[in-house]
C-alpha cells in the first residue's frame, strides 16, 4: 500500500509495515521516516528483515499490511546482487533501463551516469568482463537513472574492495548533499556509524531502535569501546 508523498513532508514515510511469509513474520509493524538528504542505515543480524524491508520500499515485494509514502517507481532501488545483463555493455545496460524508466533523454542521462560513476572509459565493455566492484557501480548507476528522491541500497559495499568502498560512500554522500534520501542495509556496522545520519536496528522483523549511532552507543552505556560492541550489546540486552 502506498500513500502519496508531499513536498513538505519527509522524503519517505513508512507506517506499520508488516510482511508474512507463510507462518513467519518477516516484518512486524515497522515505521520510520527519512528526510531529504538524510542517510539511514538499516542494521541487524542475519534474518532480521533488512532485505525484506528494502524490497517492500522498492516495490519488489508487497507488504502484508501498512503503507509506504512513495510510489516504488519514484524510488531508486539497488539490490545486493548486480541486477544488470552480463552480455550487454555498460552503456547498453544503462540505456535499456533509462528507456524502461521513460527518462526524457536516455542518452544524456546515460552519459551523466557514466561520468558520475567513473565508468565512461568502460562504457563499451560487456558487463561480464568487469570486476565485481565495477559491476556494482553499474548496478548503482542503474538505480539512479531516474534521478530519484529516495535511493535504496541493499548491502552496497559487500563486494567492493576498500578503495572502491571509499569511492562508493563518497558518491552516496554527494547524492545526499544534493537532497537524495538514502536508505542502505549493511552488515558492516562501522560503515553505518561512519556514513549514516541515523541507524535503524532490526531484529526478527521488529524495529528495535531508531536514532543516531551515538544514541545507540549511549543506549547501552559508555563502557562499550566501539560502535560494533555497542550494537552487539544492544541486541543482547534486547534478547537477540
Amino acid at each position, binding site marked *: 500500500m502506498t500513500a502519496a508523498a508531499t513536498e513538505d513532508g519527509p522524503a519517505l514515510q513508512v507506517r506499520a509495515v508488516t510482511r508474512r511469509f507463510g507462518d513467519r513474520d518477516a516484518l512486524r509493524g515497522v515505521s520510520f521516516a527519512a528526510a531529504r538528504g538524510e542517510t539511514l542505515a538499516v542494521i541487524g543480524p542475519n534474518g532480521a528483515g533488512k532485505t525484506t524491508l528494502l524490497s517492500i520500499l522498492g*516495490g519488489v515485494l508487497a507488504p502484508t499490511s501498512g503503507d509506504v509514502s512513495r510510489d516504488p517507481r519514484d524510488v531508486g*532501488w539497488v539490490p545486493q*546482487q548486480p*541486477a544488470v545483463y552480463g552480455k550487454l555493455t555498460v552503456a547498453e545496460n544503462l540505456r535499456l533501463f533509462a528507456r*524502461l*524508466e521513460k527518462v526524457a533523454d536516455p542518452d544524456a542521462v546515460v552519459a551523466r551516469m557514466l561520468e558520475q560513476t567513473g565508468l565512461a572509459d568502460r562504457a563499451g565493455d*560487456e558487463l561480464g568482463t568487469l570486476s565485481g566492484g565495477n559491476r556494482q557501480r553499474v548496478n548503482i548507476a542503474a538505480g539512479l537513472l531516474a534521478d530519484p528522491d529516495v535511493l535504496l541500497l541493499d548491502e552496497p559495499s559487500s563486494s567492493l574492495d576498500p578503495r572502491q568502498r571509499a569511492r562508493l560512500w563518497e558518491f552516496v554522500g554527494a547524492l545526499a548533499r544534493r537532497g537524495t534520501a538514502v536508505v542502505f542495509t549493511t552488515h558492516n556496522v562501522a560503515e553505518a556509524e561512519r556514513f549514516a545520519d541515523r541507524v535503524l536496528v532490526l531484529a526478527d522483523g521488529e524495529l528495535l531502535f531508531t536514532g543516531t549511532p551515538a544514541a545507540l552507543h549511549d543506549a547501552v552505556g559508555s563502557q562499550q569501546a566501539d560502535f560494533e560492541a555497542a550494537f552487539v550489546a544492544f541486541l543482547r540486552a534486547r534478547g537477540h
Partner: protein
Amino acid sequence: MRFLLAKDLRILRRSPLLVSLLVIYPLLIAVLVGLALSKGPDKPRVAILNQLPSTGGTLTIGGTKVDPADYAQRLFQSIVPVTVHSRAEAERKVRDGDVLAAIIVPADLVQRLQRTITLSGSGQKPTVEVLYNAEDPVKQQFVQSTIDARVAELNRAVSTKLTQISAGYLDILLSGGKFSILGRDVDILGLKRSKALVDSVLTRTPRGSPDREALQRVSSFAQLAINNLGLSDVVLGSLATPVKVDQHIVQGRRTPLDAYAVAVAVTLSLMLVCVLLAAGMLALEREEHAFARLVRGLVSREALLAEKVVLAAGCAATTALLMTAGISAFVSLDWGRFPLWVVALVAGGLAFGALGVAIGALAREVRAASLLAILLALPIAFLALVPSGAVATGLYDAIRVISALFPFRPALDAADAALNDAGGLGTALAHLGALVVGWAIVARVALQRFG
C-alpha cells in the same frame, strides 16, 4: 517491450554457441525422427471381419486343395488380430483408434477365386477390403505395406498353382487328351495329332478333293484352340493378382510420407528452438537478478512473459521457415501456400513459447529450464506421433489427452495442413490459441516463484 526485445536479440547475437546449439540440435533431432519414421510399430492391432462360411472354405487348384485359413495364420503372426462381427463394428474400431486397420474378408472369396482360376471362369476377382484411419502418413504407409505383403503371399501361392494348371492346359493343347468342360468329357486331339491327321489326309486326298470329316475335326480343334487362347488373357491376369485388395480410408487424409516428414521435422525444430529459447530467456532474467528490477514498475509480469513468447516464436518461426525453404530444394512443396506456412509456424511458435515461459518460470534457472524443456518436449513430441492401434486402447486414449494438452500435436497438424493441404488448419489454430492462453496462465502463476 521493444526495448526488452532488442536487448534479448543483442544477447543472443553475443551468444554464438547458444544460438548454434539451438539450430544444430533440432536439425539432428529432425534427422533422427526422419529415420525413425521409416519404421512402423511391431504387431499392430488389426480388426478381422471373416465372413467366410465355416465349411467349404477350401479352394481347389489343379486338383490340390488350398485352405485360405493357412494364409490368415501367416497374417496373424505379424499382427494382433481383433475379431469383429460386423462391418460397422470394424469401422467404429478403426475410427476410434482401437485398431490400426480392419480387414474384411467377403463370404464369397473362395467361390470367386475358384471361378477366376478355372478355364471356364470369368467375372470379378475376389476382393479383400482394408479399412484404416489415415490420421498420419506413417501409419498409412505401415498399414499398406503390412497388408500388401500378406496379400502378396496369398497371391503368390495361388499363382504358383495357376502356373501349373496353365502348363497342363498347354500340354493338352500340344499333345491332346481328356478334358472336362461343363460336366462333359471331351477328347482333345492336340496339335501334334492334328498335324499328323492332316498330313495323313493330305497324302491320301487328291488335289482339289476335300476330306470333309478330317477337315471338320481340324476345324473343331482350331476353334477350341482359339476359344482357349481367348480365355488365356483372364487366366494370365489372374496369375498376377488372383485376389484384389480394395483399401478405404475411414478417417484422415492421404499425405505422402516425405511431405509429412517435412511437417514433422519443421515442427520439431520449431518446438525445440521455441521452448528452449523462451524457457532460457525467462530464467535468465532471474539468474541475472534483473527480474526484480524490471517488475518493480518498469514492466508488468504479463508484458515480460509476452515479450519472451513473441521473441521465441519469432526466432523459432524464422528458423523453421528457413529450414522449410531449404528442404523445398529436395522435397516438392507448394510455395503458393507460403502465407499459410507463416501463419501455422507463428501460431505454433506462440504456443510453444507459452509452454517455454511456463517451464522457465517453474525452473527459474537457465540450466534447469533447458533440461526441463528437453525432458518434457521430446517425449511429448514422440507421444504425439504414436498412431492409433499401435498401443492398447486405454493407453492410446491417455496419449491423446496428453498430446492435446501440449502444443506439438496441433502444431504438427497446422504445419501439415499449411504445407501439404491436409485440411484442418482452422481447428489446429484454434487449439493452439487455447494452448497459448492456458500455458500463459500457468507461466503467470509459476512466476510467483520468481520472488
